[in-house]
Protein backbone atom coordinates (compact mmCIF):
# COMPACT_ATOMS: atom_id res chain seq x y z
CA UNK A 1 0.00 0.00 0.00
CA UNK A 2 1.39 3.37 -1.00
CA UNK A 3 1.93 5.61 2.02
CA UNK A 4 -0.14 8.78 2.15
CA UNK A 5 1.73 11.81 0.89
CA UNK A 6 1.53 14.85 3.15
CA UNK A 7 -0.13 17.89 1.61
CA UNK A 8 3.02 19.87 2.36
CA UNK A 9 4.94 17.62 -0.06
CA UNK A 10 2.16 17.30 -2.61
CA UNK A 11 2.00 21.07 -2.87
CA UNK A 12 5.62 21.19 -4.01
CA UNK A 13 4.83 19.67 -7.42
CA UNK A 14 4.52 22.95 -9.32
CA UNK A 15 7.59 24.40 -7.66
CA UNK A 16 9.55 21.25 -8.43
CA UNK A 17 8.65 21.40 -12.12
CA UNK A 18 9.64 25.07 -12.15
CA UNK A 19 12.96 24.42 -10.43
CA UNK A 20 11.91 26.84 -7.70
CA UNK A 21 12.52 24.58 -4.69
CA UNK A 22 15.48 24.52 -2.37
CA UNK A 23 17.75 21.46 -2.82
CA UNK A 24 16.31 20.01 0.38
CA UNK A 25 12.73 20.44 -0.77
CA UNK A 26 13.61 18.95 -4.15
CA UNK A 27 15.12 15.88 -2.50
CA UNK A 28 12.09 15.45 -0.27
CA UNK A 29 9.77 15.72 -3.24
CA UNK A 30 11.78 13.29 -5.37
CA UNK A 31 11.71 10.76 -2.57
CA UNK A 32 7.93 11.02 -2.38
CA UNK A 33 7.58 10.95 -6.16
CA UNK A 34 9.43 7.65 -6.44
CA UNK A 35 6.56 5.90 -4.69
CA UNK A 36 3.75 7.94 -6.15
CA UNK A 37 2.74 7.63 -9.81
CA UNK A 38 0.19 10.31 -9.07
CA UNK A 39 2.87 12.83 -8.12
CA UNK A 40 4.98 11.81 -11.11
CA UNK A 41 2.02 12.42 -13.40
CA UNK A 42 1.44 15.80 -11.84
CA UNK A 43 5.05 16.79 -12.54
CA UNK A 44 4.71 15.52 -16.10
CA UNK A 45 1.68 17.75 -16.55
CA UNK A 46 3.49 20.78 -15.21
CA UNK A 47 6.39 20.09 -17.57
CA UNK A 48 3.93 20.07 -20.47
CA UNK A 49 2.69 23.40 -19.17
CA UNK A 50 6.28 24.67 -19.07
CA UNK A 51 6.63 23.80 -22.75
CA UNK A 52 3.54 25.84 -23.56
CA UNK A 53 4.67 28.82 -21.50
CA UNK A 54 7.82 28.89 -23.63
CA UNK A 55 5.66 30.04 -26.53
CA UNK A 56 5.26 33.50 -25.06
CA UNK A 57 6.63 36.03 -27.57
CA UNK A 58 10.30 36.74 -27.11
CA UNK A 59 13.50 37.61 -28.94
CA UNK A 60 14.65 35.33 -31.71
CA UNK A 61 18.10 33.82 -32.07
CA UNK A 62 20.40 34.71 -34.90
CA UNK A 63 20.30 32.40 -37.88
CA UNK A 64 23.88 31.28 -37.40
CA UNK A 65 22.92 29.55 -34.15
CA UNK A 66 21.61 26.61 -36.17
CA UNK A 67 24.98 26.24 -37.89
CA UNK A 68 26.78 26.46 -34.57
CA UNK A 69 24.56 23.69 -33.25
CA UNK A 70 25.54 21.41 -36.12
CA UNK A 71 29.21 22.20 -35.47
CA UNK A 72 28.78 21.62 -31.74
CA UNK A 73 27.16 18.21 -31.98
CA UNK A 74 29.99 17.06 -34.18
CA UNK A 75 32.09 16.97 -31.01
CA UNK A 76 29.55 16.42 -28.25
CA UNK A 77 28.10 12.95 -28.62
CA UNK A 78 28.57 10.46 -25.82
CA UNK A 79 29.85 7.48 -27.77
CA UNK A 80 28.62 4.15 -26.46
CA UNK A 81 31.80 2.10 -26.62
CA UNK A 82 30.18 -1.29 -26.84
CA UNK A 83 27.80 -0.13 -29.54
CA UNK A 84 30.65 1.42 -31.48
CA UNK A 85 32.56 -1.84 -31.39
CA UNK A 86 29.57 -3.78 -32.60
CA UNK A 87 29.27 -1.52 -35.60
CA UNK A 88 32.76 -2.08 -36.84
CA UNK A 89 31.85 -5.13 -38.89
CA UNK A 90 28.28 -4.53 -40.10
CA UNK A 91 28.97 -5.81 -43.60
CA UNK A 92 29.49 -9.34 -42.34
CA UNK A 93 25.80 -9.62 -41.57
CA UNK A 94 24.88 -8.39 -45.00
CA UNK A 95 27.24 -10.84 -46.69
CA UNK A 96 25.72 -13.68 -44.73
CA UNK A 97 22.26 -12.55 -45.72
CA UNK A 98 23.38 -12.26 -49.33
CA UNK A 99 24.53 -15.89 -49.28
CA UNK A 100 21.11 -16.97 -48.14
CA UNK A 101 19.46 -14.98 -50.90
CA UNK A 102 21.73 -16.44 -53.56
CA UNK A 103 21.06 -19.95 -52.34
CA UNK A 104 17.34 -19.60 -52.12
CA UNK A 105 16.68 -17.08 -54.84
CA UNK A 106 13.51 -15.93 -53.17
CA UNK A 107 12.10 -12.51 -53.86
CA UNK A 108 11.10 -12.13 -50.25
CA UNK A 109 14.67 -12.62 -49.15
CA UNK A 110 15.86 -10.11 -51.71
CA UNK A 111 13.54 -7.54 -50.25
CA UNK A 112 14.81 -8.36 -46.78
CA UNK A 113 18.37 -8.02 -48.00
CA UNK A 114 17.63 -4.64 -49.48
CA UNK A 115 16.23 -3.47 -46.19
CA UNK A 116 19.27 -4.78 -44.37
CA UNK A 117 21.52 -3.04 -46.85
CA UNK A 118 19.78 0.25 -46.22
CA UNK A 119 20.11 -0.28 -42.50
CA UNK A 120 23.76 -1.17 -42.85
CA UNK A 121 24.43 1.93 -44.93
CA UNK A 122 22.79 3.95 -42.21
CA UNK A 123 24.89 2.29 -39.52
CA UNK A 124 28.01 2.75 -41.59
CA UNK A 125 27.25 6.44 -41.84
CA UNK A 126 26.75 6.56 -38.06
CA UNK A 127 30.08 4.79 -37.55
CA UNK A 128 31.81 7.28 -39.80
CA UNK A 129 30.33 10.16 -37.84
CA UNK A 130 31.42 8.55 -34.60
CA UNK A 131 34.90 8.16 -35.98
CA UNK A 132 34.92 11.84 -36.86
CA UNK A 133 33.89 12.69 -33.31
CA UNK A 134 36.67 10.55 -31.91
CA UNK A 135 39.11 12.39 -34.12
CA UNK A 136 37.77 15.60 -32.66
CA UNK A 137 38.35 14.19 -29.20
CA UNK A 138 41.90 13.29 -30.13
CA UNK A 139 42.39 16.78 -31.46
CA UNK A 140 41.14 18.17 -28.16
CA UNK A 141 43.79 16.19 -26.35
CA UNK A 142 46.61 16.88 -28.80
CA UNK A 143 45.88 20.58 -29.19
CA UNK A 144 46.46 21.05 -25.46
CA UNK A 145 50.16 20.47 -26.08
CA UNK A 146 51.88 21.12 -22.74
CA UNK A 147 48.71 22.47 -21.17
CA UNK A 148 46.92 19.19 -20.62
CA UNK A 149 45.96 18.31 -17.07
CA UNK A 150 44.76 14.83 -16.20
CA UNK A 151 42.58 14.41 -13.14
CA UNK A 152 41.80 10.96 -11.77
CA UNK A 153 38.34 10.76 -10.22
CA UNK A 154 38.25 7.84 -7.84
CA UNK A 155 36.10 6.01 -5.35
CA UNK A 156 37.42 3.98 -2.47
CA UNK A 157 37.88 0.22 -2.59
CA UNK A 158 39.45 -2.38 -4.81
CA UNK A 159 38.31 -2.52 -8.41
CA UNK A 160 36.37 0.69 -7.75
CA UNK A 161 34.96 2.77 -10.61
CA UNK A 162 36.78 5.83 -11.82
CA UNK A 163 37.00 8.54 -14.42
CA UNK A 164 39.97 9.94 -16.28
CA UNK A 165 39.30 13.63 -16.80
CA UNK A 166 41.43 15.40 -19.43
CA UNK A 167 41.46 19.18 -19.13
CA UNK A 168 42.76 21.15 -22.12
CA UNK A 169 43.86 24.38 -20.44
CA UNK A 170 44.54 26.09 -23.75
CA UNK A 171 40.96 25.74 -24.98
CA UNK A 172 39.39 25.32 -21.51
CA UNK A 173 37.61 22.19 -22.68
CA UNK A 174 37.62 18.68 -21.33
CA UNK A 175 36.90 15.09 -22.25
CA UNK A 176 36.41 12.26 -19.80
CA UNK A 177 36.43 8.49 -19.83
CA UNK A 178 34.52 6.55 -17.21
CA UNK A 179 35.12 2.90 -16.35
CA UNK A 180 33.66 0.24 -14.07
CA UNK A 181 30.64 2.40 -13.30
CA UNK A 182 27.60 0.42 -12.12
CA UNK A 183 24.32 1.14 -13.93
CA UNK A 184 22.56 4.26 -12.69
CA UNK A 185 19.35 3.58 -10.73
CA UNK A 186 16.12 3.73 -12.70
CA UNK A 187 15.20 7.31 -13.52
CA UNK A 188 18.69 8.50 -12.57
CA UNK A 189 21.90 9.29 -14.40
CA UNK A 190 25.44 10.25 -13.53
CA UNK A 191 26.35 13.92 -13.62
CA UNK A 192 29.82 15.39 -13.80
CA UNK A 193 30.63 18.50 -11.75
CA UNK A 194 33.63 20.75 -11.67
CA UNK A 195 34.57 22.68 -8.55
CA UNK A 196 35.35 26.34 -8.99
CA UNK A 197 36.19 28.43 -5.94
CA UNK A 198 34.50 25.93 -3.70
CA UNK A 199 31.26 25.84 -5.68
CA UNK A 200 30.05 22.96 -7.85
CA UNK A 201 29.38 23.92 -11.48
CA UNK A 202 27.14 21.41 -13.28
CA UNK A 203 28.56 19.47 -16.18
CA UNK A 204 27.31 16.81 -18.61
CA UNK A 205 24.82 14.13 -17.62
CA UNK A 206 25.69 10.65 -18.83
CA UNK A 207 24.99 6.94 -18.41
CA UNK A 208 27.55 4.16 -18.78
CA UNK A 209 27.26 1.31 -21.21
CA UNK A 210 26.63 -2.20 -19.94
CA UNK A 211 30.36 -2.72 -19.52
CA UNK A 212 30.49 0.26 -17.18
CA UNK A 213 32.31 2.54 -19.60
CA UNK A 214 31.38 5.87 -21.21
CA UNK A 215 33.16 8.54 -23.16
CA UNK A 216 32.09 12.08 -22.44
CA UNK A 217 33.32 14.06 -25.38
CA UNK A 218 34.45 17.63 -25.58
CA UNK A 219 32.61 19.97 -23.26
CA UNK A 220 33.36 23.53 -22.26
CA UNK A 221 34.54 24.35 -18.73
CA UNK A 222 33.71 27.58 -16.88
CA UNK A 223 36.20 30.38 -17.35
CA UNK A 224 38.62 30.96 -14.51
CA UNK A 225 39.91 27.44 -13.99
CA UNK A 226 38.79 24.59 -11.79
CA UNK A 227 40.19 22.99 -8.67
CA UNK A 228 38.47 19.59 -8.68
CA UNK A 229 35.89 17.42 -10.41
CA UNK A 230 33.28 15.06 -9.03
CA UNK A 231 30.44 12.77 -10.06
CA UNK A 232 27.05 12.32 -8.40
CA UNK A 233 23.90 10.41 -9.25
CA UNK A 234 21.11 12.81 -10.23
CA UNK A 235 17.69 12.80 -11.90
CA UNK A 236 17.90 12.11 -15.63
CA UNK A 237 17.50 15.74 -16.62
CA UNK A 238 20.47 16.74 -14.48
CA UNK A 239 20.49 19.02 -11.46
CA UNK A 240 21.50 22.60 -10.85
CA UNK A 241 23.16 21.71 -7.56
CA UNK A 242 24.27 18.26 -6.39
CA UNK A 243 21.40 16.46 -4.68
CA UNK A 244 23.06 13.12 -3.99
CA UNK A 245 26.32 12.02 -2.33
CA UNK A 246 29.53 12.23 -4.32
CA UNK A 247 30.46 8.88 -5.86
CA UNK A 248 33.71 9.95 -7.51
CA UNK A 249 36.07 12.80 -6.72
CA UNK A 250 39.40 14.05 -7.93
CA UNK A 251 41.44 17.15 -7.17
CA UNK A 252 43.52 19.04 -9.70
CA UNK A 253 47.16 18.66 -8.72
CA UNK A 254 48.68 21.80 -7.25
CA UNK A 255 45.38 23.44 -6.26
Amino acid at each position, binding site marked *: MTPAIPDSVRELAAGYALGALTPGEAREFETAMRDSPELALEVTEYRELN*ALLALRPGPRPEGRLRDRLVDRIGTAKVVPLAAARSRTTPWLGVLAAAAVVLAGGLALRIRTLTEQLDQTKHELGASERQLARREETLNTLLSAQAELTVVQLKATGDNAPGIQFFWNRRANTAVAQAFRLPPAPKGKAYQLWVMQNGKPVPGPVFVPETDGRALILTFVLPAGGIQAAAVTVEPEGGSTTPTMPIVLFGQVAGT
Partner: protein
Amino acid sequence: MLGADMVLAVSPLVREIRPLVMTHAAASPAVETDRALLERVARGDERALGQLYDRYGAPLYAVAYRIAGEPADAEEIVLEALSQAWREAARFQADKGSVAAWLTMICRSRALDLVRARGRRAKLADKAVAADPEAVPGLGTGTPDSDSQVAQAERAGRVADALASLSPPQRQAIELAYYEGLSHSEIAERLNEPLGTIKTRVRLAMQKLRETLRPYYFEATG
Protein backbone atom coordinates in the same frame (compact mmCIF):
# COMPACT_ATOMS: atom_id res chain seq x y z
CA MET B 1 6.12 24.96 -33.33
CA LEU B 2 3.73 22.15 -33.95
CA GLY B 3 3.84 19.42 -31.39
CA ALA B 4 3.00 16.86 -34.00
CA ASP B 5 3.13 13.99 -31.57
CA MET B 6 -0.11 12.12 -31.32
CA VAL B 7 -2.28 11.66 -28.31
CA LEU B 8 -1.59 8.65 -26.12
CA ALA B 9 -4.03 8.15 -23.31
CA VAL B 10 -6.25 11.08 -22.46
CA SER B 11 -9.18 11.76 -20.22
CA PRO B 12 -12.60 11.98 -21.89
CA LEU B 13 -12.59 15.73 -21.40
CA VAL B 14 -9.24 16.19 -23.05
CA ARG B 15 -10.12 13.77 -25.81
CA GLU B 16 -13.14 15.90 -26.56
CA ILE B 17 -11.19 19.13 -26.80
CA ARG B 18 -7.98 18.02 -28.45
CA PRO B 19 -9.18 17.73 -32.04
CA LEU B 20 -8.71 21.49 -32.25
CA VAL B 21 -4.98 20.96 -32.12
CA MET B 22 -4.83 17.57 -33.78
CA THR B 23 -6.56 18.80 -36.89
CA HIS B 24 -3.36 20.34 -38.16
CA ALA B 25 -1.39 17.17 -37.80
CA ALA B 26 -4.14 15.08 -39.32
CA ALA B 27 -4.26 17.33 -42.35
CA SER B 28 -0.54 17.09 -42.86
CA PRO B 29 0.54 13.49 -42.99
CA ALA B 30 3.91 14.57 -44.35
CA VAL B 31 4.79 16.35 -41.12
CA GLU B 32 7.16 14.15 -39.16
CA THR B 33 6.28 13.86 -35.50
CA ASP B 34 8.61 15.18 -32.85
CA ARG B 35 9.07 11.68 -31.58
CA ALA B 36 10.02 10.37 -35.02
CA LEU B 37 12.54 13.16 -35.34
CA LEU B 38 14.00 12.34 -31.96
CA GLU B 39 14.32 8.69 -32.94
CA ARG B 40 16.33 9.79 -35.94
CA VAL B 41 18.43 11.98 -33.66
CA ALA B 42 19.10 8.93 -31.49
CA ARG B 43 20.43 7.17 -34.58
CA GLY B 44 22.86 10.02 -35.19
CA ASP B 45 20.91 11.90 -37.86
CA GLU B 46 22.11 15.50 -37.62
CA ARG B 47 19.45 16.74 -40.02
CA ALA B 48 16.74 15.56 -37.65
CA LEU B 49 18.26 17.62 -34.86
CA GLY B 50 18.24 20.58 -37.23
CA GLN B 51 14.54 20.03 -37.82
CA LEU B 52 13.89 19.94 -34.08
CA TYR B 53 15.83 23.17 -33.81
CA ASP B 54 13.60 24.69 -36.48
CA ARG B 55 10.57 23.81 -34.39
CA TYR B 56 11.84 24.61 -30.94
CA GLY B 57 14.96 26.73 -31.27
CA ALA B 58 13.22 30.08 -30.99
CA PRO B 59 11.06 29.34 -27.92
CA LEU B 60 14.01 27.70 -26.18
CA TYR B 61 16.16 30.72 -26.95
CA ALA B 62 13.49 33.06 -25.60
CA VAL B 63 13.25 31.06 -22.37
CA ALA B 64 17.03 31.02 -22.00
CA TYR B 65 17.30 34.73 -22.74
CA ARG B 66 14.74 35.66 -20.12
CA ILE B 67 16.50 33.64 -17.45
CA ALA B 68 20.10 34.46 -18.36
CA GLY B 69 19.51 38.02 -19.53
CA GLU B 70 22.25 38.07 -22.17
CA PRO B 71 22.10 36.98 -25.82
CA ALA B 72 25.47 35.26 -25.74
CA ASP B 73 24.50 33.27 -22.65
CA ALA B 74 21.13 32.37 -24.18
CA GLU B 75 22.83 31.06 -27.31
CA GLU B 76 25.22 28.97 -25.26
CA ILE B 77 22.36 27.58 -23.18
CA VAL B 78 20.41 26.54 -26.28
CA LEU B 79 23.51 24.93 -27.77
CA GLU B 80 24.19 23.05 -24.55
CA ALA B 81 20.57 21.96 -24.19
CA LEU B 82 20.28 20.64 -27.73
CA SER B 83 23.71 19.03 -27.50
CA GLN B 84 22.46 17.22 -24.41
CA ALA B 85 19.37 16.16 -26.32
CA TRP B 86 21.65 14.90 -29.09
CA ARG B 87 23.66 12.83 -26.62
CA GLU B 88 20.68 11.48 -24.71
CA ALA B 89 17.97 11.13 -27.35
CA ALA B 90 18.01 7.36 -27.06
CA ARG B 91 17.05 7.65 -23.41
CA PHE B 92 13.97 9.83 -24.00
CA GLN B 93 10.97 8.26 -22.27
CA ALA B 94 7.78 8.98 -24.17
CA ASP B 95 5.62 7.97 -21.23
CA LYS B 96 7.04 10.86 -19.24
CA GLY B 97 5.83 13.58 -21.58
CA SER B 98 6.33 15.17 -24.96
CA VAL B 99 9.54 15.98 -26.75
CA ALA B 100 8.70 19.67 -26.37
CA ALA B 101 8.40 19.29 -22.59
CA TRP B 102 11.66 17.34 -22.45
CA LEU B 103 13.58 19.94 -24.43
CA THR B 104 12.09 22.77 -22.39
CA MET B 105 13.04 21.02 -19.15
CA ILE B 106 16.62 20.56 -20.30
CA CYS B 107 16.89 24.14 -21.51
CA ARG B 108 15.51 25.65 -18.31
CA SER B 109 17.77 23.42 -16.24
CA ARG B 110 20.83 24.56 -18.15
CA ALA B 111 19.76 28.20 -17.86
CA LEU B 112 19.21 27.88 -14.11
CA ASP B 113 22.55 26.08 -13.81
CA LEU B 114 24.26 29.03 -15.43
CA VAL B 115 22.70 31.85 -13.45
CA ARG B 116 22.94 30.03 -10.14
CA ALA B 117 26.55 29.04 -10.75
CA ARG B 118 27.37 32.65 -11.41
CA GLY B 119 25.39 33.84 -8.45
CA ARG B 120 23.53 36.43 -10.40
CA ARG B 121 19.98 36.88 -11.52
CA ALA B 122 18.50 37.66 -14.88
CA LYS B 123 16.96 40.96 -15.83
CA LEU B 124 13.27 41.65 -15.66
CA ALA B 125 11.30 39.40 -17.93
CA ASP B 126 9.85 42.31 -19.86
CA LYS B 127 13.33 43.22 -21.03
CA ALA B 128 13.25 40.21 -23.29
CA VAL B 129 10.23 41.43 -25.19
CA ALA B 130 11.38 45.02 -25.19
CA ALA B 131 14.69 43.95 -26.72
CA ASP B 132 12.94 42.79 -29.84
CA PRO B 133 9.65 44.47 -30.64
CA GLU B 134 9.41 42.38 -33.79
CA ALA B 135 9.42 39.21 -31.78
CA VAL B 136 7.17 36.52 -33.12
CA PRO B 137 5.60 33.92 -30.88
CA GLY B 138 7.61 30.76 -31.02
CA LEU B 139 8.62 30.75 -34.66
CA GLY B 140 11.79 28.87 -35.47
CA THR B 141 14.64 30.28 -37.45
CA GLY B 142 14.43 27.53 -40.04
CA THR B 143 11.56 26.78 -42.33
CA PRO B 144 9.03 24.75 -40.41
CA ASP B 145 5.93 23.75 -42.28
CA SER B 146 3.04 26.18 -42.33
CA ASP B 147 0.79 23.89 -40.32
CA SER B 148 3.39 23.94 -37.58
CA GLN B 149 3.31 27.71 -37.59
CA VAL B 150 -0.47 27.80 -37.45
CA ALA B 151 -0.67 25.41 -34.52
CA GLN B 152 2.17 27.19 -32.78
CA ALA B 153 0.55 30.58 -33.15
CA GLU B 154 -2.71 29.12 -31.89
CA ARG B 155 -1.02 27.74 -28.82
CA ALA B 156 0.84 31.00 -28.22
CA GLY B 157 -2.45 32.86 -28.31
CA ARG B 158 -3.95 30.51 -25.75
CA VAL B 159 -0.93 30.96 -23.51
CA ALA B 160 -1.28 34.75 -23.70
CA ASP B 161 -4.99 34.49 -22.85
CA ALA B 162 -4.28 32.17 -19.93
CA LEU B 163 -1.60 34.44 -18.51
CA ALA B 164 -3.93 37.42 -18.88
CA SER B 165 -6.60 35.58 -16.89
CA LEU B 166 -4.37 35.39 -13.80
CA SER B 167 -4.62 37.99 -11.07
CA PRO B 168 -1.79 40.57 -11.23
CA PRO B 169 0.01 39.10 -8.18
CA GLN B 170 -0.27 35.59 -9.64
CA ARG B 171 0.98 36.76 -13.03
CA GLN B 172 3.91 38.49 -11.37
CA ALA B 173 4.76 35.30 -9.47
CA ILE B 174 4.79 33.30 -12.72
CA GLU B 175 6.88 35.98 -14.41
CA LEU B 176 9.49 35.62 -11.73
CA ALA B 177 9.32 31.86 -11.24
CA TYR B 178 9.08 30.71 -14.84
CA TYR B 179 10.38 33.51 -17.00
CA GLU B 180 13.16 34.68 -14.71
CA GLY B 181 13.87 31.35 -13.06
CA LEU B 182 13.76 32.64 -9.49
CA SER B 183 13.26 30.23 -6.61
CA HIS B 184 10.42 30.68 -4.14
CA SER B 185 12.74 32.25 -1.60
CA GLU B 186 14.23 34.61 -4.16
CA ILE B 187 10.76 35.75 -5.18
CA ALA B 188 9.79 36.31 -1.56
CA GLU B 189 12.92 38.35 -1.04
CA ARG B 190 12.40 40.43 -4.15
CA LEU B 191 8.75 41.15 -3.38
CA ASN B 192 9.34 41.43 0.36
CA GLU B 193 6.50 39.05 1.10
CA PRO B 194 6.30 35.93 3.31
CA LEU B 195 7.73 32.77 1.76
CA GLY B 196 4.55 30.82 2.43
CA THR B 197 2.47 33.42 0.61
CA ILE B 198 4.72 33.18 -2.43
CA LYS B 199 4.65 29.38 -2.49
CA THR B 200 0.86 29.38 -2.39
CA ARG B 201 0.62 32.06 -5.04
CA VAL B 202 2.92 30.23 -7.45
CA ARG B 203 1.14 26.95 -6.86
CA LEU B 204 -2.34 28.37 -7.42
CA ALA B 205 -1.22 30.22 -10.53
CA MET B 206 0.34 27.08 -11.99
CA GLN B 207 -2.76 25.05 -11.15
CA LYS B 208 -4.95 27.57 -12.91
CA LEU B 209 -2.71 27.64 -15.97
CA ARG B 210 -2.62 23.86 -16.03
CA GLU B 211 -6.40 23.58 -16.02
CA THR B 212 -6.76 26.25 -18.69
CA LEU B 213 -4.04 25.03 -21.02
CA ARG B 214 -4.31 21.27 -20.61
CA PRO B 215 -6.19 20.84 -23.92
CA TYR B 216 -3.26 22.41 -25.74
CA TYR B 217 -0.43 20.29 -24.38
CA PHE B 218 1.98 19.04 -27.01
CA GLU B 219 1.09 15.58 -25.88
CA ALA B 220 -1.71 14.64 -23.53
CA THR B 221 -0.85 13.08 -20.21
CA GLY B 222 -2.93 10.75 -18.16
